[in-house]
C-alpha cells in the first residue's frame, strides 16, 4: 500500500469515527439543548477526606435536577486559603467557596469576599431564625454578612470501649462510663494509663496541632485569645493560665495523655487511648477502622461545658465583575444544599447549621449525630478578628512547650500574649 493510500484510508477511518460519534451523541446534544442556558459555576472547597465523595454525589444530583454544572476544585484547606488570597485580587477566584468561619474576618477585611445584603439572603430563603445563633453570627464581620453557614464540625468525646472495659470503666450494660467533671475525667484516665496505653487526650489528628483542644479548654474556663473588644490578647489572664496548667498537666505531670507528636487517632484505633476529645470529622474514619467506640458530649472540665466548633461557610469570592447568571446559579446551589443538608449530615457526619434538619428522624436516630446535636447549646467558635488565624499559628508551638513540660504555663501564656499583641496589622 502506498503512503497516499494509507493517508486516504486513515482519513476515511477518522471521518467514520467522527460521523459515528456525532450520530451517537445526537440524543445527548438534543437533551443538553434545553439546559444550554444554565451556566457552569466554579466551586472551591477543602473537602479532601471521605466527605469529598459525599459532596461529589450530592453535586451530581444537583446538576441532574437543576441543569447547573459545578466545576469543583478540591484543595487542602491551608492551600485553598492561600490560593483564594492570591487568585481573588487577580480576578481569578471561583464563583463559590466553602471556608471555615475563622477565615471570614481576614478575607472580609482584605476585600477577598463579597458582602451579602441581608435582604438578598432573606430573599433566597436564608434567615437568621432558621440557623443556630453561633453559626449565623460566624458569617458576620463588623456588622456585615459575608458568609452563609452550612454545617458544624465540632469537638466530641470519643470513648474506646475496649480500653475502658479493660480498666473496668463500663456500666452493667457494657457501655463506657461518661466522666462528669475534671476530677472524674482524670481519675478515669489514670486507671486506663499503663505502659503504652493512655487514658485521655484532647486535640486533633495532626501532630503539633494542639491549638483547638487548648481553645476548647480556654472557652470552658470563660477565657479567650482576645479581650472582648478584640484589642489585646487575654491569654495572660488567670483563667487562661489555669486552662494552660491543665493542658500542661495531662502529659507532663499526670502522664495520662500520649507524648507530643503521637497520632491520637492511630492510638485510639490501636486500642491505646481511652478517652479522646477530638473533631467530629473522625467519626467516619473510626467507623471504617471498625473500632468499638461510643461518643458523649464534651465533658465540663472547667466552668461551662463549651464545645469547640468551626463551622463551614459558603462565600462569594469577589469577582472583577459579577456575572448575574453565575451568581444566581451559586445561590441556587446554596439553597439546594441547605435543603438537602440532612443527607450531607447522614453521609458526611457533620450536623447542619440550619435547625430544620435537626428533627429529621434519620438524624435523631443516629447516636453520634444525636450527641452532636445535643451539644448545640454549648457551641462556641473563634473570635471575629482578622488576626485570629495568625494568633492560632503562634499558639501551636507555645502550647506545645507547655504540653511537654518545657515551659511553665504562666510564662508561656505571658509570652504568647506578648507575641499576639505584637502581630502587625
Amino acid at each position, binding site marked *: 500500500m502506498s503512503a497516499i493510500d494509507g493517508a486516504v484510508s486513515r482519513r476515511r477511518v477518522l471521518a467514520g469515527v467522527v460521523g459515528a460519534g456525532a450520530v451517537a451523541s445526537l440524543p445527548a446534544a438534543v437533551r443538553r439543548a434545553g439546559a444550554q442556558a444554565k451556566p457552569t459555576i466554579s466551586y472551591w472547597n477543602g473537602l479532601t477526606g471521605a466527605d469529598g465523595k459525599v459532596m461529589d454525589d450530592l453535586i451530581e444530583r444537583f446538576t441532574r435536577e437543576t441543569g447547573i454544572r459545578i466545576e469543583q476544585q478540591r484543595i487542602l484547606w491551608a492551600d485553598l486559603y492561600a490560593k483564594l488570597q492570591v487568585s481573588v485580587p487577580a480576578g481569578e477566584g471561583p464563583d463559590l467557596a466553602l471556608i471555615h468561619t475563622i477565615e471570614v474576618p481576614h478575607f472580609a477585611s*482584605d476585600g477577598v469576599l463579597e458582602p451579602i445584603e441581608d435582604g438578598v439572603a432573606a430573599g433566597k430563603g436564608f434567615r437568621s431564625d432558621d440557623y443556630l445563633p453561633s453559626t449565623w453570627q460566624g458569617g458576620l464581620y463588623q456588622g456585615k454578612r459575608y458568609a452563609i453557614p452550612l454545617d458544624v464540625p465540632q469537638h466530641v468525646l470519643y470513648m474506646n470501649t475496649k480500653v475502658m472495659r479493660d480498666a473496668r470503666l463500663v456500666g452493667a450494660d457494657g457501655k463506657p462510663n461518661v466522666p462528669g467533671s475534671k476530677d472524674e475525667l482524670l481519675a478515669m484516665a489514670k486507671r486506663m494509663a499503663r505502659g503504652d496505653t493512655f487514658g485521655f487526650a484532647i486535640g486533633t489528628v495532626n501532630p503539633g*496541632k494542639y491549638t483547638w483542644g487548648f481553645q476548647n479548654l480556654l472557652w470552658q474556663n470563660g477565657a479567650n485569645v482576645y479581650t472582648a473588644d478584640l484589642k489585646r490578647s487575654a491569654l495572660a489572664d488567670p483563667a487562661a493560665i489555669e486552662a494552660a496548667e491543665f493542658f500542661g498537666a495531662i502529659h507532663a505531670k499526670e502522664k495520662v495523655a500520649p507524648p507530643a507528636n503521637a497520632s491520637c487517632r492511630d492510638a485510639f484505633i490501636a486500642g491505646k487511648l481511652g478517652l479522646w476529645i477530638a473533631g467530629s470529622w473522625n467519626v467516619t474514619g473510626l467507623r471504617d477502622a471498625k473500632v468499638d467506640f461510643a461518643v458523649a458530649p464534651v465533658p465540663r472540665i472547667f466552668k461551662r461545658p463549651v464545645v469547640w466548633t468551626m463551622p463551614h461557610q459558603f462565600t462569594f469570592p469577589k469577582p472583577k465583575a459579577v456575572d448575574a447568571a453565575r451568581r444566581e446559579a451559586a445561590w441556587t446551589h446554596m439553597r439546594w444544599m441547605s435543603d438537602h443538608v440532612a443527607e450531607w449530615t447522614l453521609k458526611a457526619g457533620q450536623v447542619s447549621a440550619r435547625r430544620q434538619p435537626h428533627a429529621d428522624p434519620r438524624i435523631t436516630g443516629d447516636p453520634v449525630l444525636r450527641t452532636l446535636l445535643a451539644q448545640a447549646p454549648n457551641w462556641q467558635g473563634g473570635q471575629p478578628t482578622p488576626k485570629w488565624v495568625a494568633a492560632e499559628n503562634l499558639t501551636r508551638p507555645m502550647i506545645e512547650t507547655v504540653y511537654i513540660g518545657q515551659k511553665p504555663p504562666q510564662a508561656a501564656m505571658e509570652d504568647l500574649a506578648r507575641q499576639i499583641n505584637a502581630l502587625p496589622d
Partner: protein
Amino acid sequence: MSVLTRVPRRRRRGALTPYLFLAPGLLLFAAFRLYPLLDGLRLSFTNARLGRTQYAWVGLANYERLLEDTRFHASLWNTAFYTVASTLPVLAIPLALAIALNRGVALRTWLRSAFFFPFTLSVVTVGLTWLWLLDPVVGPFNYYLRSLGFPVRSWLADPSTAMWTIILTTVWWVAGYYLVIYLAGLQDIPRELYEAAAIDGATGWRSFWAITLPLLRPVLLFVFVTHIIGSFQIFGQVFILTQGGPGDATRTAVQHLYETAFQNFFHFGSASAMAWVLFAVIVGFSLLQFRVLRGHTEY
C-alpha cells in the same frame, strides 16, 4: 569613530549567534529567577501584603524588625545547627558506602539501587513514612526498642532528640544520591595510582588519605556546597515531621519565612526581607567553602 564600525558586519552577526541560542534560556531565567529575586528585594523595603493593592515604602523597617524577631533568630540558629550537624554524616556515610561498593562487593548493582531508592521518593512520602515509623505510641521503631528492652522516647517531641531525628531521616533520604556522585568520582581515579602505591607498600588507609581523598576533592566540594545550600533551605522534612516543634526546637529559617508569607497574614514585605537575609548567609557560606576547599590535586 566607534570600534564597532571597524568590525566586519559578518563577524558582528557571528558574535550575536551564541546569544540568540542562549536567549530562550536567558529569557526564562530572567522571568522566573531574576525578576522574582529583584522584585523580592524591592518588596523587602515595603509593607506589602498579599491581597492589598496599596503598600508603602518602609525603608529598612523590615530588616530592623528581624533584629528583634527572636523566633527568626531561633530559626536561623536551628538551621545553622542542622547544617553543621548534618554535614559530617552526609559527607562521610555515602563516601564509606561508595568506597565499599567500589571495591566490588557482591550484589553491587542491587545495593546501589537500594541505596538510591529513598532519593526517588518525594519529601512528603519520606516525612510521612518516618512520622509513622517514629510514632511514640503505635510506631514500630519504639515497639522493637521496647521489646528489646531499650528505653523508648518520643523522638520527635523531645527537644533534645528532635533535630537529630530529622538529621537521621535526611541522611537516609539523600545518602543514595551522594553515593552515586561519589561512585562516579571514585571510578575516575586511575587504578595505576593505587597499584603504584601498593608497590611502594602503602596500606589501605594510607592510599585513602594520599590518593582517594585528594583526587576526590572536586566531588567533595560539589557535595559539600550543594549540601550546605540545601541545608540552609531545609523545610519539607521539618514541616511534615515536627512542624517546627516541639515549641520552636526544630523551626527553620525557611519555615519561618513560609509562615510569614503564606500562613501568617501574607506579609510579603517581611518575608522578602527574611529571604534576602537567608540569601546573604548562603552566599557567605558558599564563598567561604570555595575559599577553604579550592585547589586541585593531580598526580
